[in-house]
């Protein structure tokens, strides 16, 4: 995916990107290649934040995360790695998008930087701010158009939304630690995901539980909620997929008959 494509293709790609068929492919069918497995996580939180997702705001918050920023804003040190991980994940998503020649935001000039940054970022010990390629600065007007394109990409938005939720949970835990509302649960708070089940497309099911779960006084309740959540999510997702695939197949009748 990170191979350098010939520069000549750029214009052609951008032209093709504007066609209705390609807009559709990028959106609906764009989800399909991203489906590798169903992943259900159950998280215990002190307070549930309301249903609201403002992409630009979440982006600004995640963009500003850096070791310096965390120190200056007084984020508890036990949360630092998790905050930095959010920024790193978003940056990795960004570099995978700018290197994808099928996308509108594909930037061939950045492909070399992509390879370098990717090598740096796969090592978790490296600081993501040292990467050659950085997320577009929301305050820089020269990068505004590029950022606009990025925020118009569904795959990026999905990633941003998930990271935004995780950040809200971290913020809450950090606030409680700062306020020393309940110092005894310090370790509990820093572990975000209690139970996770991955159902792979070939039918393999992988359960992973946080070891803190087994010290939690309500472990049975959490396990029950998680198990029920997995079953419900499976039904829900199967229904959604069946519907989406049916739409996709019907809108491309040629695909049924083969080429």
């Amino acid at each position, binding site marked *: 995916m990170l191979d350098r494509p010939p520069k000549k293709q750029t214009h052609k790609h951008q032209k093709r990107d504007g066609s*209705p068929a390609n*807009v559709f492919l*990028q*959106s*609906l069918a764009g989800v399909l290649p*991203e*489906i*590798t*497995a*169903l*992943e*259900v*996580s*159950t*998280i*215990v*939180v*002190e*307070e*549930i*934040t*309301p*249903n*609201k*997702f*403002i*992409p630009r705001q979440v982006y600004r918050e995640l963009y500003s995360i850096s070791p310096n920023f965390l120190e200056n804003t007084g984020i508890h040190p036990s949360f630092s790695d998790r905050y930095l991980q959010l920024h790193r994940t978003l940056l990795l998503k960004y570099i995978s998008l700018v290197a994808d020649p099928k996308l509108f935001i594909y930037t061939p000039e950045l492909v070399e930087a992509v390879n370098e940054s990717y090598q740096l970022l796969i090592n978790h010990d490296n600081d993501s701010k040292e990467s050659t390629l950085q997320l577009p600065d929301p305050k820089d007007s020269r990068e505004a158009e590029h950022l606009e394109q990025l925020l*118009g990409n569904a*795959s990026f*938005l*999905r990633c941003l*939304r*998930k990271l935004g*939720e995780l950040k809200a949970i971290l913020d809450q835990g950090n606030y409680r630690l700062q306020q020393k509302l309940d110092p005894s649960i310090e370790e509990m708070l820093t572990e975000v995901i209690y139970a996770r089940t991955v159902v792979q497309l070939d039918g393999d099911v992988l359960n992973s539980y946080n070891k803190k779960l087994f010290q939690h006084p*309500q472990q*049975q*309740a*959490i396990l*029950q*909620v*998680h198990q*029920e*959540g997995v*079953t*419900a*999510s499976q*039904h*829900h*997702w199967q*229904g*959604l997929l*069946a*519907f*989406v695939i*049916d*739409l*996709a197949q*019907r*809108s491309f*009748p040629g695909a049924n008959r083969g080429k």
Partner: protein
Amino acid sequence: MTRTTRTTRTTRIINLEKYIEFPSTTDKVEGFSGINFHFNSQIIAKIEQARQRGHGLHISRKLQTKLRCCSLIGLESYLQSGLSICTYYQQEDREEAVIKSLLSPDGDIMHQISSYYLHHHQLCTQITSTHYWLMQQLTLHLAWQRTRLGDYLAWLVAILAMLGLLVAYPQGIFTNLMALGIVILLTWGLQKLCKVMFGLGTRALDNWAIAQFLILSSSSQLWQQEMAKLFLKYLVV
């Protein structure tokens, strides 16, 4: 309302429209909200009873269109950026969020549960089961069977044919009530016949309409998104 209650009894469904809050599809506000359920102990008990009897969720056509709009149209839709469903529980005079699910179409599903309610095991189980059940019920309402394009075309052909007949033989038809009645009956019969005749071609027509819908729904142009909304409102069964 009386009518809905009667239907509820006869067709084994439960109507919870008053307790489900959909994001507005008309006002364009910044940011994407989600679907909220607002429950109290009585509603939870009512839903549990309905589930035990195997009843399904009923939502009106208007809400079904809303659900489909917020799921399928535009960049802020479920199919694009994900959907968040949150259940609020009302106790005495305060309402609190108990469980929130972030559903991403790429298969990542995140359930957040309030630790306060975990301490109340039975209530927690009741609320979360209801939340999960509704999540699944909404998926059933999302999918559609077919479009009405064939039906509309059959009516159009029938009405045009009858208009042609009226123009050709206008004498006496408008003044004679019986003749007018026969014309209306003939139109109805003709559209039925057309539907049967179109039967084979309707699927191809449906597929074509779906392809148009998908192009419109994923467009960033507002007018195209409005067209997609009209499609969901009038063309889908």
